[in-house]
């Protein structure tokens, strides 16, 4: 029982990171019907900026503080937000009216650009990452809860509450949802589609930036290809929850993190990656619209 709870805590913490990345996939899919395969690399840039800010530009990594960690996270989020804005503006907007496959291939191109551009700038070797002050694991009722896991879960929860407020209770969120249902009609309501799409990219990328810092705190090694696997997993999470559905991405990420931890804990850790893709295949076979996805019928 204690072992199970331990796996659940680890799974939730891992899943929270997947959820944060998956939200970017799902929101962009919602407004543009595009799978932004460069999203995992935006997440990588978040970690990268964190490393530069803590180890290269300052000596924060030698003596981390909470204030410093907050500042570095804010910087990573802002940089990723800007990057998301630029990617949409330069790579996707010119292709808005082109066939979807062109945008998809462009997304893969942007992904390669960031990965190999990163290797050129940063070198292929992983670097040690530290922004959180070291802190012993807490023991609650015989369970050991890592400091990083607490921080990860708390930060993700906070960000998701803020996101929920934005998406469901703000003018911009209303506009985002309207665009995701029907962009043509949304425009006729007076909604500026270009602005909404830019905003969506920024919002998703900001979350990826935060995820980058959290992930690197958990697995403290950053390198330019680190976005690949978490990016794919988060994509699976988004599909699992129902692509285009915001609560779905949160749920999908959580379930995926849990599934991975449980399989790694009770089975073998080499099955960890396999389980994610098995889930993808299964969901596409059984319920392609995802757990919370809806299929809508149109009235004539």
């Amino acid at each position: 029982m204690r072992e199970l709870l331990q796996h659940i805590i680890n799974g939730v913490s891992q899943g929270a990171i997947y959820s944060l990345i998956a939200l970017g996939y799902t929101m962009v899919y919602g407004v543009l019907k595009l799978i932004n395969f460069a999203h995992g690399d935006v997440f990588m840039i978040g970690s990268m900026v964190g490393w530069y800010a803590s180890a290269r530009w300052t000596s924060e990594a030698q003596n981390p503080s909470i204030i410093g960690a907050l500042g570095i996270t804010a910087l990573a989020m802002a940089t990723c937000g800007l990057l998301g804005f630029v990617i949409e503006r330069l790579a996707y907007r010119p292709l808005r009216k082109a066939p979807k496959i062109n945008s998809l291939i462009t997304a893969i191109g942007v992904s390669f650009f960031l990965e190999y551009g990163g290797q050129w700038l940063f070198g292929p070797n992983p670097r040690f990452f530290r922004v959180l002050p070291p802190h012993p694991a807490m023991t609650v009722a015989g369970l050991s809860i890592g400091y990083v896991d607490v921080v990860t879960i708390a930060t993700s929860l906070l960000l998701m509450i803020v996101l929920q407020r934005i998406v469901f209770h703000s003018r911009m969120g209303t506009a985002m949802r309207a665009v995701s249902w029907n962009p043509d009609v949304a425009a006729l309501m007076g909604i500026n589609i270009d602005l909404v799409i830019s905003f969506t990219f920024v919002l998703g990328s900001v979350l990826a930036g935060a995820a980058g810092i959290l992930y690197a705190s958990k697995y403290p090694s950053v390198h330019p290809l680190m976005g690949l696997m978490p990016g794919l997993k988060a994509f699976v999470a988004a599909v699992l929850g129902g692509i285009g559905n915001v609560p779905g991405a949160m749920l999908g990420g959580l379930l995926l993190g849990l599934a991975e931890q449980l399989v790694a804990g009770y089975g073998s850790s080499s099955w960890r990656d396999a389980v994610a893709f098995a889930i993808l295949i299964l969901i596409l076979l059984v319920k392609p619209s995802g757990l919370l996805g809806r299929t809508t019928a149109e009235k004539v």
Partner: protein
Amino acid sequence: MTVLLELANIDVHYGAIHALRGISFSVAEGEIVTLIGANGAGKTTTLRAVSGMLKPTNGSIKYSGADIAGLKPHKLVARGLCHAPEGRGIFPNLTVRENLLLGAFLRRDTQEIAKDEAKGFALFPVLKERAAQPAGTLSGGEQQMLAIARALMARPKLLLLDEPSLGLAPQVTETIFRIIEEINKAGVTILLVEQNAHLALGIAHHGYVLETGTVVQSGTGQELLKSPEIRKAYLGE
């Protein structure tokens, strides 16, 4: 009478297809103007060009004296040019009330919005009964009413209506046309696209007949109703 909308030599292409070929017509303030014509004549395309959903390849569109050809729809909504699109375009997952409020997206005068919502409900009492229901559960006629009521929430000066009678029972169509006249009498200029030429010309001050992307005939609603060619081609005689 002041001219509110004026199209001059408008061309629209869909790729290689030349959909509108030099369309010119005008709409005076306070009028109901209708475009009639067969399927594929370019009626919907004309509306889409006016509301900014399509960019004309040639020609000018003047609205309230300013050239608006190529402006994005949201800019035009802000200037009081609203379009209730073909197929109604309601948001099926949102409630009736949420759909109406989206129509007032650009407005921030909460009290006036509430007043306009009440006006919309007075115009279409059935929408009030269903205010909390998802719009996707409405019947076709009710969805059309919602589409019109929602467009009115932006306080339009010019309202574009695309086939409000499409797929509706005759009595429902009549109700909707009666309300279109009411809206017009309250001061909203209306540009109406219709397949039901008889009904449309019956309420229109002016009508234009479109054929393969050009205006082939025009006149007052009554003149067109009496015209032998029109009676033959569009009124089934």
